[in-house]
């Protein structure tokens, strides 16, 4: 049950002295809507929510919190899938969505500078106006904030060729736990002056500092792209296709996978004519010079057929291709159509181990009598096995727990990880020690203590 912590009136007085009182929320009807993010079955206590509009305001709040040792939970749009922005009791929820300006588009240096609360898609659209591309495109891009993307080091559909958020962060402005403001990085392509501190904050899930501005690298928009959909009668054949394409030294920008349950759910929502009788589909995209992609497209189609694709369809135009990508982005939410509770996992393995991992997940589902829909960024070895369950059924939830653990253990055994892109947050905290080992964990703790000695920034996330 959601609870509201008893408010310290002094705290509210202080905050309303720093911010316009309209940007300090204390009403119960407001607070109840900030107790969760996109993660299933996690809920927290909310004391107060603040909306700073400038870095200076953020710094003032942090200085006050540091002095009083009050925890601060940063929040973007709350689409996180590991509970990263779920509040702690008596914390200040610091929401950055009102710091959403795009400050500068530098065509000479191919960079874009934005406030942390800017929506990912707005950045993509802005870059597009001058023929540039910001490649990271998480499924949530139409609402996720760029600050949230950096804090989670989010991936996307184009990760295979273009990499992930980290590969595009050139610099950032961060408010440290003391309230000090620092700039890390710059517009230089090369810079080895000191440690690359910005990298420490990428993927730090709000535990080391509050990101207020982000400087991002852009690339020229590829001249053309080719989008294909391959259908399969077995999941193995789809996985084989991915391995074969990579072995043929082709790097498409997208190799996304959907299994039968996911196909059905996505089709129910998007109504774009996906094949409901296929066991699996691969959504493949290659971009670049028209002549090159023509050639690559042909090769990919051939490989898909050789690996057992029952059919390969090519998108007729950009509109069709966009519809496919949008449909793919809806996969996770669409899976919620099946059952009351939808628990999404993020296991990732080296690409060469994909077929094994997929088979293992199928086995787990049968063994524990569970429904699992699987989709994911297959080209990155990043799978999202999704448990379709009911949190009121405690017996089934116990089986889900066991199954999840087995999947994580096996991913680690294959040289993989428990989370490829959603972060540890609260949801995967207990699996972290096994995944990275004690020595690494100690290092993480030391870093946290150095940057946030009083532990006020998003305490209890990633590790205790």
């Amino acid at each position: 049950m959601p609870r509201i912590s008893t408010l310290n009136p002094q705290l509210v007085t202080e905050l309303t002295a720093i911010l316009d009182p309209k940007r300090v929320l204390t009403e119960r009807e407001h607070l109840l809507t900030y107790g969760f993010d996109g993660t299933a079955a996690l809920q927290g206590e909310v004391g107060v929510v603040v909306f700073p509009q400038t870095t200076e305001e953020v710094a003032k709040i942090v200085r006050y919190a540091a002095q009083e040792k009050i925890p601060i939970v940063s929040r973007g749009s709350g689409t996180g899938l590991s509970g990263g922005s779920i509040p702690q009791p008596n914390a200040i929820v610091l929401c950055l969505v009102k710091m959403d300006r795009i400050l500068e588009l530098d065509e000479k240096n191919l960079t874009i500078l934005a406030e942390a609360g800017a929506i990912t898609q707005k950045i993509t659209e802005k870059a597009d106006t001058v023929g540039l591309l910001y490649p990271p495109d998480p499924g949530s891009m139409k609402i996720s904030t760029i600050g949230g993307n950096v804090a989670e080091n989010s991936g996307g559909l184009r990760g295979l060729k273009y990499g992930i958020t980290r590969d595009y962060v050139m610099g950032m402005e961060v408010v440290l736990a003391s309230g000090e403001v620092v700039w890390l990085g710059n517009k230089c392509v090369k810079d080895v002056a000191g440690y690359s501190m910005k990298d420490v904050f990428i993927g730090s899930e709000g535990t080391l500092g509050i990101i207020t501005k982000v400087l991002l690298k852009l690339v020229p928009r590829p001249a053309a792209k080719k989008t294909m959909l391959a259908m399969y009668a077995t999941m193995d054949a789809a996985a084989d296709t991915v391995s074969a394409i990579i072995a043929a030294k082709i790097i498409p920008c997208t190799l996304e996978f959907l299994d039968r349950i996911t196909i059905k759910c996505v089709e129910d929502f998007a109504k774009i004519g996906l094949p409901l009788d296929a066991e699996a589909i691969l959504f493949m995209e290659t971009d670049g010079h028209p002549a090159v992609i023509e050639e690559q497209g042909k090769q990919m189609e051939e490989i898909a057929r050789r690996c057992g694709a029952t059919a390969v369809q090519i998108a007729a135009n950009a509109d069709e291709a966009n519809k496919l990508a949008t449909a793919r982005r809806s996969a996770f939410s669409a899976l919620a159509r099946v059952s009351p509770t939808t628990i999404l996992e993020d296991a990732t393995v080296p690409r060469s181990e994909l077929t094994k991992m997929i088979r293992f997940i199928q086995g787990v589902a049968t063994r524990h009598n569970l429904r699992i829909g699987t989709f994911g960024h297959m080209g990155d070895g990043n799978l999202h096995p999704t448990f379709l369950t009911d949190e009121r059924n405690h017996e089934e939830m116990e089986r889900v727990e066991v199954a999840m653990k087995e999947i994580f253990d096996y991913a680690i055994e294959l040289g993989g990880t428990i989370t490829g892109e959603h972060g540890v947050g609260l949801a995967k905290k207990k699996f972290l020690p096994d995944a990275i080992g004690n020595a690494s964990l100690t290092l993480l703790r030391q870093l946290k203590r150095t940057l946030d000695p009083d532990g006020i920034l998003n305490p209890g996330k990633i590790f205790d």
Partner: protein
Amino acid sequence: MAFSTRERSLTDIPSTALKGESKPHHLANLDFAVLQQCIHCGMCLPTCPTYDTTKLERNSPRGRIALMRNIAEGHLDVTRAFGEELYFCLGCLACETACPAGVNYARMFEEARADIEDAGVLRYAKRDFVRAVMLRFIFAHPLALKALGRLLRLYQVSGLEWLVRKLRLTALLPADLRELEPLTPRIQPDFSDQLIGPVESPAKPGYRVGMLTGCVQDLVYPHVNRDTVDVLLANGCEVVTPAAQHCCGSLHAHNGELTLAREMARKSIDDMERAAGSLEHLDAIITNAAGCGSHLKHYDDLLEHDPQYARRARLWSHKLKDIHQWLAEIGITPPQTTGGSQPSTINYQLPVTYHEACHLCHGQKITQQPRTVLKSIPGLKLVELPESTWCCGSAGVYNITQPEMSHRLLERKLDNIAKTGAKVVASANPGCSVQLEAGARERGEALEIVHPITLLARAYRKGGEHS
């Protein structure tokens, strides 16, 4: 507004029975599956006009659902703040279109508003009076609505309106009513029953359909009803139009009066049966008002537990078609052209743009069919409207209850229309048309707001003249 079959429905408790007690039984009785469907992924946030404006979770679909869930589970009482929140929501259902998880927002929204009315948290004398007059009297009795229409018409044509405005007598009205005054639509001299015969038949009838004339449509745009009948005739449909029609009850359902809404639904079914003999004798029941259509299609859910009406309501919902949807289904008879190499009979010098009424595109998922209708008109150039599915702020009585937000949305819509360069805006909902006309008047812009079916009817008439 797809009501899924999984849910349990409401029990028929009169909304007055529990007044004063704040037991929110409407939300509490909703099936777990409906309330639990939202996985708080946030994918609906950018499409919600109120969230887009304030960036506050509470003003978002996800936030509102969270509050409703808290109420259903007994963690939150039906408070005044909750009441205000659910009346700040436009009910535009853009969130339903955006939601991949298939959340049935419309259902929760109506139940929540019913709980709010039962709890009486928004009660104060003027609101009670206006609601009682509007929902329980005027929109519940067809004759009262017509009488009001006649009075308004008298006010408008007698010169009284001119005098009142000229003498600035409107300054004497309370501020909120004064702001509304320019929104009052022009009432037409004849209502639908004077323009449409009880049964009209084409030369070779292929179908037999029932025609719903609506309330606002009937008062303000009765010619749209005439045009609809003409279009149906031109497409081989015999048209049965009950003379005295009741309000469909959508206004009641959206404003927390579910009991009255059921009453209206039963009466509407009776009206149609009386005129047509039986619903079985009709191939379709036609509506041309998006807001009504989106509600009319759910009589099956609304009357699910009414032993006398459940079966008829299912038949009703099954046969209920928006006019564009029906035309697309039977295949539009193209308007005649003058022949030869000159394909156009009507020469639209200016392009036409299409504004999508929320309750057509979100409520009924009808997006392509109106465009098909428009494109069937020879010589018509359709320019796409940016953000065509973004609410215009009319939203039932929203422009009356939330003038500020409504106006903001209207401005955004008019700006987008201006970008297209079109001077003719096709819109298939009388509420939107009233709102857009008022906005254009205020800006001094010469925009013609016209129902797509009127444009089609004109094309048939033009074609008829030439051939």
